[in-house]
């Protein structure tokens, strides 16, 4: 299977890890209180997904079925640990905030699910692409949720971007409402659940509409 368009649309929309497969919700819900946290976790997840998909695909003909899962776990754990160390070395202050959840990427089922369902059966290039776009799809949901929660919860956008891009990035913070006291619910875990629920609902509505449009065209052409 080398249909790149299918891999891309699966990762970003049709089979999105966060809104369709509903995998990796623990880090997703925990860190999305601001955009910068969401972006940090998203980039780390993409990196881990790509590394693990490529590695699993490379070794897919060597590894015997009975030791498949432990080997995947080993590969993922190594990839996560390396990502964790790299983050400590280059984005230390951001690491202090989301570091706990970097380790939790290991438990993000989306990664082992892609290793098992895709990378272990496909070529290296396809697997790398799948990892990249599954990661991007996951990051997109993180960012949408982070944006929603930061706007409603803090009344700002892109606060603390300096944690990731250095002191020069502080100007990026946009205060949307002056004297806004913040809305606690959005920052606390229930806000994450409600936000994610809304995102999934909106996605389903769009899918339903598209489906109707397609069947409508089909019916018209049939008659």
């Amino acid at each position, binding site marked *: 299977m080398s249909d790149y368009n299918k891999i891309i649309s699966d990762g970003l929309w049709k089979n999105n890890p966060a809104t369709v497969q509903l995998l990796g919700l623990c880090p997703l819900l925990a860190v999305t*209180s601001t955009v910068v946290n969401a972006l940090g976790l998203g980039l780390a997840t993409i990196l881990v997904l790509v590394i693990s998909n490529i590695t699993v695909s490379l*070794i897919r003909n*060597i*590894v*015997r079925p*009975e*030791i498949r899962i*432990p*080997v995947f776990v*080993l*590969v993922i*754990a*190594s990839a996560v*640990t*390396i990502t964790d*160390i*790299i983050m*400590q*070395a*280059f984005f*230390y*202050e951001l690491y*202090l905030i989301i570091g706990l959840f970097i380790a939790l990427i290991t438990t993000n089922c989306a990664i082992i699910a892609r290793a098992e369902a895709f990378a272990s059966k496909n070529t290296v290039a396809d697997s790398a692409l799948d990892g990249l776009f599954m990661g991007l799809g996951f990051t997109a949901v993180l960012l949408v949720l982070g944006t929603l929660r930061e706007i409603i*919860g803090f009344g700002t956008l892109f606060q603390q971007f300096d944690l990731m891009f250095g002191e020069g990035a502080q100007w990026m913070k946009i205060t949307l409402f002056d004297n806004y006291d*913040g809305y*606690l619910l959005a*920052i*606390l875990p229930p806000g994450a659940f409600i936000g994610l629920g809304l995102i999934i609902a909106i996605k389903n509505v769009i899918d339903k509409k598209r489906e109707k449009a397609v069947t409508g065209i089909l019916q018209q052409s049939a008659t």
Partner: protein
Amino acid sequence: MKPGKSMLVSASLLAAFAIGGTAIVALTYTNTADRVSQNKRDYTLGKLHELIKPDQHTNDMDRDTIQVQDKMLGTKEKVLVYRARKNNQPVAAIIQSVAPDGYSGRIEMLVAIKYGGELAGVRVVGHRETPGLGDAIDARKSDWIEQFSGKSLQNPGETAWKVNRDGGKFDQITSATITSRAVIKCIHNTLKYYELNRDYLFKKQDNE
């Protein structure tokens, strides 16, 4: 293949992957260890310099430390104390004390006390207080914690080290009185501890 041999092959394969994975992690670690420890050090120094400005001391504050243990500091564990000195004269001590009775668990603080017993400043470095309410103790969220700078055991006196609501001299954070009380009590206890142990705190050299 015999089942015994097949198992052996699987086992050695698994072992090979374990060794390979560990090797790569070890390699990454050794190549970044210096940078990571430098980051940690810069971060600690940055926190300390918020309390004692770089021009107020000449020693390596983050390395001139001593560990002390006292229940007045809010924990049974050992507590780190950083010492600031200028030309070998003591300037201030920064004590990592703990407020054990926050609204959701312990609040870890850095209490900087000038040699004379006056507070140079206080920072909260670790807490799990409610976002939007109790987290106003964090200097990045509000300037509530700044009201303690310049205060001491004599200013205000013993009975005034409380929030306004309890008849004291300090503002409480709206809707987070428990958090405010915990922080104030911790600072007060740390000041008392400092007064009783000042000479000891500056004398003992851990690193020599």
